[in-house]
């Protein structure tokens, strides 16, 4: 009936030692520098047959960053409709949270259900890589859309627009709105946002063209993709440069905040705001003429193109190599760029004439 006791100290020591021993069991000394990256494509050696017919009854699945995200829902619904158009069966599955690992179980499920193609918008380019490679080994076509995976884990990536086009479109829109004359500023997200900075550099290059000689970029401000901060930055810009003619905000948070500030200030109608925004955020500012025109890609076209890419890969029309041509129904043809990228096209411009056609 007595409870035997041992020295817990011993247990403690044993546990620690055991854990350490376990960790040292693997010998060697691989470091980041000595490790070689395995960049081999799982699905290589296949040849494309551009004349192959689109197979009927393909099983396609969209795996968004998270379900119940309004933007992703539009993309996926449009893709599902497009798949129906070429007699494929498509569905959307996905996690309710956008965490790095949450998509992994879904990829396994889609492998088990023997889908022909998976269209994925990756939460983490690498966390999904292992299972995606497994899927590719089982002849499942992988299309990344909207947000890329590591290149070796997918066949193609549907990119919203090329950086050059995004930069060019924004400069173009502003030039039109201010008659290519005067000072303007850029209201960006964070100072180290990779895509924003790439666009800003390309915008500067674009501004070297002779037709923009009278336009002057006076400042790049950062609103950190925070509504309040972007609002204050807009205010600051207008105080610092009273003769400012326009603001380009290549971020959906920034453009809405800038438009809101201009809308409620004496600058309404005098200072142009343009950039990248979503129609739902910007509708009121278009309607009350604070903003004339802004741009973004059309999410419906993005889903449409992703579905066609999945179908074409699964039917053997393309394999994802540079130079192959994807036939994408109503969208026409797209040539595959280096690194398996397929570019949707120039951004879609939204203005008073067309904004009510877009709900996202």
């Amino acid at each position, binding site marked *: *009936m007595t*409870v*035997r*006791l*041992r020295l*817990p*100290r011993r*247990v*403690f020591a044993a*546990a*620690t030692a055991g*854990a*350490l021993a*376990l*960790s*040292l069991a*693997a*010998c*060697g*000394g*691989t*470091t*980041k*520098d000595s*490790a*070689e*990256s*395995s960049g081999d494509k799982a699905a290589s050696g296949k040849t494309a047959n551009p004349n192959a017919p689109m197979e009927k009854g393909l099983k396609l699945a969209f795996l968004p960053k998270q*379900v119940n995200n309004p933007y992703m829902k539009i993309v996926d619904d449009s893709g599902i409709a497009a798949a129906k158009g070429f007699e494929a069966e498509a*569905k959307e*599955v*996905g*996690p*309710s*949270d956008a*965490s*790095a*690992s949450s998509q*992994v*179980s*879904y990829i*396994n*499920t889609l*492998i*088990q*259900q*023997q889908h022909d193609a998976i269209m994925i918008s990756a939460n*983490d*380019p*690498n*966390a999904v*890589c*292992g299972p995606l490679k497994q899927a590719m080994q089982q002849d499942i076509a992988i299309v990344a859309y909207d947000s890329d995976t*590591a290149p070796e884990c997918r066949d193609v990536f549907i990119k919203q627009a090329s950086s050059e086009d995004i930069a060019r479109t924004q400069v173009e829109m502003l030039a039109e709105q201010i008659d290519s004359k005067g000072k303007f500023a850029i209201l960006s997200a964070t100072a180290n946002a990779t895509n924003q900075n790439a666009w800003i550099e390309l915008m500067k290059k674009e501004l070297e063209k002779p037709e923009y000689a009278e336009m002057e970029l006076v400042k790049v401000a950062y609103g950190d993709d925070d509504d309040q901060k972007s609002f204050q930055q807009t205010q600051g810009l207008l105080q610092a440069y009273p003769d400012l003619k326009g603001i380009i905000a290549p971020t959906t948070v920034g453009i809405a905040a800038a438009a809101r500030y201009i809308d409620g200030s004496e600058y309404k109608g005098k200072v142009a705001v343009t950039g990248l925004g979503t129609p739902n955020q910007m509708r009121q500012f278009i309607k009350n003429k604070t903003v004339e025109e802004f741009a973004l890609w059309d999410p419906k076209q993005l889903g449409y193109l992703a579905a066609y890419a999945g179908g074409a890969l699964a039917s053997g029309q393309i394999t994802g190599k540079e130079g192959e041509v994807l036939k994408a129904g109503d969208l026409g043809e797209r040539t595959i760029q280096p690194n398996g990228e397929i570019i949707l096209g120039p951004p879609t411009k939204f203005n008073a004439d067309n904004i009510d056609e877009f709900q996202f």
Partner: protein
Amino acid sequence: MTSDARSISGAAGRFVRWETAITALLVAVFVGGIGVSPDFGNSGNLSFALRDLSEIALIALPMTLLVVCGQVDLSVASVLGLCSALTGKLWDGGMSIEAIIPIVLAVGLVCGLINGFLVTKLGLPSLAVTIGTMTLYRGLAYVTLGTGAVSQFPSTYTDMTLNNVPGTPIPYPIALFAVLAVATGVVLHATGIGRSLFAIGAQEDAAYFAGIRVKRIKLVLFAVSGVVAALAGIIYTLRYGSARADNGLGLELTVIAAVLLGGIDFDGGKGTLGGVIAAVLVIGLLRNLLMLNDVSTETQSIVTGLLLIISVLTPRLIAVFREAQGRRRGARPATPAASS
């Protein structure tokens, strides 16, 4: 002393049934799964379902010991995240995985010891302490790595977490789990330490006066919990090939759900490790099965939530029922320890 011993054996006797019930549920899910979904029963899928449970299963082992002695560690998932972030940071800094592993495990040990000290030295309730350290460790994870990710781990190591033991459908992390589970089972059910844990959980004061070094044992358990969470952090990082500060977010709740579903009384003192292992498998296979049938994530969480409520409620109802039955028969009502 005698009264305590009787209540423990009585509790154990009662929970053999719970364990049987959860094992029956496991069999039902397995057999039903094969019937419902043609893709469920193949070894590839089952291997995946097991591998997907790696970290939950590992962390459930020390968690079982903690809950048996009336404690809980809510900081495990944050320790996992911190250790994942640290693994990424050190790897990015050019350190080898062999050098990183002991450092990371040591950090897990420190995290566990901090929990243990706060609980034992300051006498704070573990629920409150580990809610605090949960936030603290997750914050440290973000300080370590920010919101970015470190990847590009060498395939030799990622394969270790992705491949099966040759010739079997058992993934390596699950094989490691099996070894640790046997060790934990022996400690809990076949040694004096295990009996001490049950005694502490049932009646901490009585255990103390019986000469059990309550504080020391608790401290060790929290330390072990930290080390195992760190180990899970390394496995998680390599398995997904992605070190991030937000890795394993919310995982502690699944672990605790498994422990409770496995029949460990949240007040301590009762339960078996076998029940917990069966419960971990039930949760994993059920999730896998629901996914294969395209059941949405929201509905999945409803199913797990209901299972959990049933698992917490049923023993209480049985206890109440028995007490009422006992009174009707005029027998002596159960001791407070046994009915709690």
